[in-house]
Structures are given as C-alpha cells and as structure tokens.
C-alpha cells in the first residue's frame, strides 16, 4: 500500500533523534496492515494445516527455465521489540461512547452469550487513544471466527490504526509458517482457535491472548516470529545444454536496463557441473541489496517508510533514492520515468493495483517472470523484500476489494 504519512507526523517532534523514535516507528510501522479489510463469509472455517509439498517447481518461458521453492522468512531479533509481547487483550474503538459501541457489537452479530460476558467481565476505559474495552480470556474464547471477522471489518473501516496494530494477516493464507517455526502443538491449537478469514485473507487479532497462554519465553518468540513470517521464493535460472542463452540474456537484460549479465550468464553456462544460477546474481542492484532483508532505519523518513511502491519504483536504479520515500515524488517519478504499457508484463515492469470502485492505489509489485514477482508488502518493518509467487503476495490483499491492474515500464534512457 502507499505509505501513510499521518501515522508518524504527530510523534516526530517528540521523538526525533532519539532511540525512542526508532522504537516507536518500529512499533507503529510493523502493524500497518498489508491489506484493506472486507467482510468475510462467516461460515468459512480457518484452513487446516497442510504440509508443504516442499518440492522445487519449474516454469519455462522466454526467461528460460526457472526452478524455485518456497522459503519462510522470519523477522530478525532486531525487528522484534517489547511492545509486540504485550499481553493485555483489548479493543480500541476510537472516540466513541460506550453505549454506541454496545449497540455496535450487537449489530455485528456477536452471540448474546458473548455480549453478556462483555457486560460482566469487560472493562471500559476512555484513554487518549479513544474508548478501550479490555477483554478477558473468557470473552476471547467465546468469540466465533465470524465475530472476529465482523469486528475486524468494522475496525478497518472505522479505526484503521488499531486495526493495523492488532490484526496480523498470515502470509500464504495458511498456518505453514507456524509449522516451519516448530511452535508447540498447544500454540498451534491456540492460533487455530482464534484465526479467522476475510475472504482469502487468513488473520489473527488475539495475539495478546495467545501470548498470555504461553509460559515459555522462547515459545513466545517462536509464535511472534511465525505470526510475522513472510513466504518467499528461492529462484534459480536453469542453464544447461538446452538453454537458449541469447533468448535468456535478452529477457533478463530488459533492453539494456539490467547491465553486466551477458558474460556472467555465459560464463556460468560454460562451467561444467553447474546448471543453476541463483536469481540474486541477475537482479539489478537495488533488489539485490534488499532481497529477503528487512527495512533499515536508514531508509526511514520522519513521515514515511519504504513500502511496495518505493520498492517497485527503484527496481532498476543503481541506488535506492531517499527522494522516493516522499509519496508525491513517487507519483511524479512514475509519470516521468515510466510509461503505461499494454500486453503481458516483462521483467522489471511495475504492476500497479487500483481499487475498482474509486481508482485508489492498492498495491504495486515488480513482474519477474511467470508467476514470480518482487514485492514488499506494506510499510511494516516486519515484512521483507521478497521474490514470491503472485498468489502468495495476493493472499494478504485479496479480501473483497476488487481491483484493476495497470502495467508501467521504465523508459529507456537516450
């Protein structure tokens, strides 16, 4: 999504140039959701665990033959901070009256038993952040997936900051990251218990409840890291006797936008015993720098952090430009340096997704080859720059929002 400057503006003057500023930015940015929320089909149960087939897959085209397999990327320790481990379960409704919210909860279809529990055990507070309802474990446990889904939908529309802070979309739309991180069966059961769907997007919003139930500190870390895990791809270009080197080099050179790969690819192809070249060696400078890495504070501005658009615009640049963290500059850059094209996307093309209803910007990614894309989902510090399958990327975007795609190609310098 496009960056959201308003998130940081109020805090900058207070925290600028202090370590707390970094922590605050991390705390806020990590929760900026990747996807707008929409209502879900309420009778859809969370997806059961499906073991990954864990086999490399191959696709072929003008780009040659690519072999790829999934990897799970977890945020490094430096990107996990104390606030993530908060164990107080609460909902924030913004500047609203208790009576209004009580009516709202009833209108969302939440069961009378749960509403009664809220009346008995819930604790209302009016904080500077708005009306908050601290909820007990019993309230959490009484919620059905459809209750969570309806509440999340309302929060997204009416209190997006709290929505972004509390709702975590599980990449890939399944629980694979928790399996990969080897969380305890009890933890997995808790995750499944509180997970809910919003169309194709699988989410949790009861992080605090789960943490409260986990006694072991390391298990808490495993849970948090798995919840924030991102699915990426390791991609190899196959270079064997059947490879059409001229065609392959032509594709990955992107009409001269991607330099220095000709002799390199031919050299690898000529090496006996070598049939695979990792795509990281072919990618241009900026995606090579950021691939599978997480946002550095060095790239963060007072009002913005790198996001999908930032990552996409700089794909062919030698160095990432701090200028492009300004959202206005991004639009100017797109209009000046790129041209909209029709037909299928080529290597390095930016695909921009716009909402069908109001033509507002939804997401941008870079087309690599076949179904493989380069993307950074949202502004979150916990989301890395990845090569991934388009379907996995869309797993956190395809709620009920309809979108149209437009393809932009970098103009070739004279």
């Amino acid at each position: 999504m496009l960056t959201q400057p308003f998130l940081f503006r109020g805090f900058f003057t207070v925290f600028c140039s202090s370590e707390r500023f970094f922590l605050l930015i991390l705390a806020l940015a990590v929760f900026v959701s990747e996807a707008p929320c929409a209502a879900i089909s309420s009778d859809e149960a969370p997806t059961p665990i499906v073991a990954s087939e864990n086999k490399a897959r191959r696709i072929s085209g003008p780009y040659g033959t690519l072999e790829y397999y999934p990897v799970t990327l977890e945020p490094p320790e430096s990107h996990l901070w104390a606030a993530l481990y908060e164990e107080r379960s609460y909902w924030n409704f913004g500047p609203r009256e208790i009576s209004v919210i009580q009516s709202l909860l009833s209108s969302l279809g939440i069961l009378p038993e749960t509403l009664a529990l809220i009346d008995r055990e819930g604790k209302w507070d009016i904080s500077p952040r708005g009306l908050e309802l601290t909820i007990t474990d019993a309230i959490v446990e009484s919620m059905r997936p459809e209750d969570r889904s309806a509440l999340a939908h309302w929060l997204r529309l009416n209190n997006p900051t709290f929505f972004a802070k509390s709702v975590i979309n599980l990449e890939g739309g399944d629980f694979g990251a928790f399996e990969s991180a080897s969380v305890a069966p009890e933890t997995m059961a808790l995750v499944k218990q509180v997970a809910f769907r919003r169309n194709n997007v699988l989410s949790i919003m009861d992080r605090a409840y789960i943490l409260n139930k986990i006694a072991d500190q390391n298990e808490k870390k495993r849970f948090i890291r798995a919840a924030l895990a991102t699915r990426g791809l390791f991609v190899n270009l196959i270079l064997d006797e059947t490879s059409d080197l001229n065609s392959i080099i032509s594709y990955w050179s992107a009409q001269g936008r991607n330099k220095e790969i000709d002799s390199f690819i031919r050299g690898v192809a000529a090496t006996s015993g070598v049939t695979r070249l990792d795509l990281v060696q072919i990618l241009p400078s900026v995606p090579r720098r950021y691939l599978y890495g997480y946002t550095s504070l060095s790239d963060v501005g007072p009002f913005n952090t790198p996001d999908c658009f930032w990552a996409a615009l700089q794909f062919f640049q030698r160095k990432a430009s701090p200028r492009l963290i300004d959202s206005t500059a991004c639009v100017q850059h797109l209009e000046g340096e790129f041209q909209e094209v029709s037909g299928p996307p080529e290597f390095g093309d930016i695909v921009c997704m716009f909402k069908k209803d109001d033509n507002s910007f939804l997401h941008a990614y870079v087309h690599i080859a076949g179904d493989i894309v380069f993307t950074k989902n949202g502004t979150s510090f916990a989301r890395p720059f990845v090569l991934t399958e388009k379907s996995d990327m869309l797993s956190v975007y395809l709620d009920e929002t309809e979108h149209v795609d437009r393809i932009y190609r970098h103009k070739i310098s004279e």
Partner: protein
Amino acid sequence: MKLSMWTGFIVIKSPNKMNSRLIGALHFAVLLLGLSPDFSLAQSLSGRDVIRTPAGPWGVMEYYRVPLEAPEEYLRLLSVPSQRAEWDFPVGGEPTVRSSMLEGGLDPAEIDRIVKGSSIIKSLENTRVFPTDETVLSLPHASRMLLYHLLSTFPGNRFQARPVYIDSENLSAWFAGSGMPRAAIEDVSILAYRTPKDHGFFFSDIPLLLRRTLSSSDEKTILKGIYRRQGLMVRLRFDRESMSESLVNYWSASYKYKAVFPILRSILEAREDGAIDIAHLLPATARQSLNRFPDPGDGISGRYPDWFWTCYNFFRFVPKNVYADSPEMTELLASEFQPSLPPLQFGDMILITSGAKIIHGCIHIADDLVYTKNGADVFSPWVIMKLPDVVAYHDLSGDSTLSVYRHLDIQSENVP
C-alpha cells in the same frame, strides 16, 4: 617460457622456478591465518570447474570462476595505449638505463642485448626506452620478471605498475568466451610472467598485443578481453547433519536486517541437499555490489570506492565515503577495529602490507575466500577471490605480510 599446446588448449608453461624466501614468507603468513598453505597452481582454477572446500565452521562451500565484463560504455572511456612498447627510466639516458637494470638484477649480457635492441630518447624528465617487438618477445622469463618489477618502481610504466593478473596456466579457459583472437592468447602465453609470490601470472605487454592486431575491431576485442575480470561464484552446501549451531552462528555474525537461520531451515525443508548462493549471506552493501563494476554514479563525490571503502563498509548498511588515503583512515582502523588472530571470522578485515605500507585489504568470507575490490578504478569489480590470488595480485615486490582486524562491534555482536 613457451607456448604449450595440449589438446588444443593454450597453456602457460613456465619454468619451475620459485623463490624459496618469498614462498616461505607467504606460507608463514598463511599459516598465521590458519589457512591452507598450499599455494600451488595445482589448486588453482585451471578451467571452469566446480571446486569444493574442506569442511569448516562455515560448512562446506563450492565455487567456480565466472568472467565479468565491464559495460561497453566503460571501454569507450579508455584511452587506447600506443602500440609501441615503452619503458620509462629515470633521467640520465643510456647509462642510467644500464645501471638501473644492473641494480635490478639483470645479467649484463642481457642488458646489453636489450639496450642494443631498443631506441632510447633522453629528456629532461625521464629516459624513454622503446624496445623492438623482437626484444620484448625474446626476453627470457627470469629477465622479464626482474625488468618489469624494476619498471613498476618507476613512474610512467603503468602496465608494469598494475599488470593484468591471471590466476591460471590455462589461458584458453581464462579467455574463453571473451572473443580474444587465438594469436593474441598465444602472445599472452609467451609474455606472461610469474608473480613474485610464484602464484599466478602477470601480463604487462598490452601495447605489444595491440601492435600485432590487424584491425581496430580486434583492438577493441583484445582490450575487452584484457579488461575482463574473474570472480568466484560461491555456494554454501549443507544438509540436516551439517546444519549445526556453529554453522548458523558463523553466517549470522552481525546480521541485523535478515534472520539467516529461518532461510537455511526453509531451504532444507525444500531440498535435502541444501545449497545457498553466498550472496544471500553477505550484508546488504556487499551483496549489492558483488560481481558488479562500479557505476559512474559511485564516483559522483569525486572518488570511486577502493579497498578500504569496501572493507570499512562491509557491514554498514549506509556506506561511508572513506578511502585508503583518507586522513581519518588510521583513526577509524584504530577506533573501530582491533588486531585479531585466527581462527578468522566472517567479516574480518585482512590487510596486506608491503614494507611499511598497506597495499590492500579485503574481507574474510570463509576458508581462503575473500571479498575484495582490487582497484579504485571502474574496471575493478567487487568479487570473491581466493586469498592467495589477492595477495599475488597486489604483491609486486614479493615481501607482503598479512594481518587481521576485527570490527569491535562484531565482537560484542552489535554491529551498527
């Protein structure tokens, strides 16, 4: 030295001559580093084959050589040298030429032959010697080594001061795919000479090579081939058994923006025979530049990155423009690094010193593989090389010693 033709390949067949004092010194330095002391060319990359390292705390790595061609537009920036070989000596004319060569260790009879086979122009600034092709081509290998080393100490002899380094006897493999005419490769096989470390070869006679071309197109092809560089493509191989805590810790050193373990674990989940390109394990700035030539934009501040820039910024996310001759270089070395001893860690800075001067520095990756940028020019890419090759590349005098510096923040596992 003569051309050796073996199953169609052009190979440098050099005399089995080795300066035991120099080799001894190098072996000592390498032993100090805890690296393999085997510097023989039998270990070098004779062709484009995959070589596997012994197992270590880093796991097992395999690597192979890849050619790196500078962008075409860079070649257009080159001023093509004169086709006439020219050797610059100090002011003084023929007597100075003769005395210099004598001090350089050349045989008097050989000196006489060289002088007689050359035109000499004496000026107020220097003495220029223009040898005939025959004189250059017929120089015995030992004389060429001595003479070119001598010339490298006088200003004006740019080809001897920074000769082309060739790490392989197999020139056919070295130039494969470059389009170099066979005749030119044959000339190189005659004119290449052993490095002072007796590890790999130097080649300095680019003017003569150009002189023997038949077209400007050939000239361009030759320059392209000569300025082509070689880097190593390196992969870490691991499996469930070898993926120990020590392996993960080795490659996780100082990482801040990437969690290495989940990546390695995911690879093993996908493939039993885990392998990962070493680029994924390098910090962001190093990964961005690996196997790439500097961009003109890299020099926009007036300087292109050199070895110190490369070493100092290895772990830094935002590079700082400091260079080997920056006034603050010594202070940075003293305040942010400390001398260290083997076993080397990922990211250690290895300094190569000749006499009292640091002539180069590179970054230890694993085994004897280092991350290096061998010059501050646009024709020097960031590459992974074997340490003995880097030493041989830079050590024109054969007296180099090595020392190791470790970033202080790595020791406390808190790199900025």
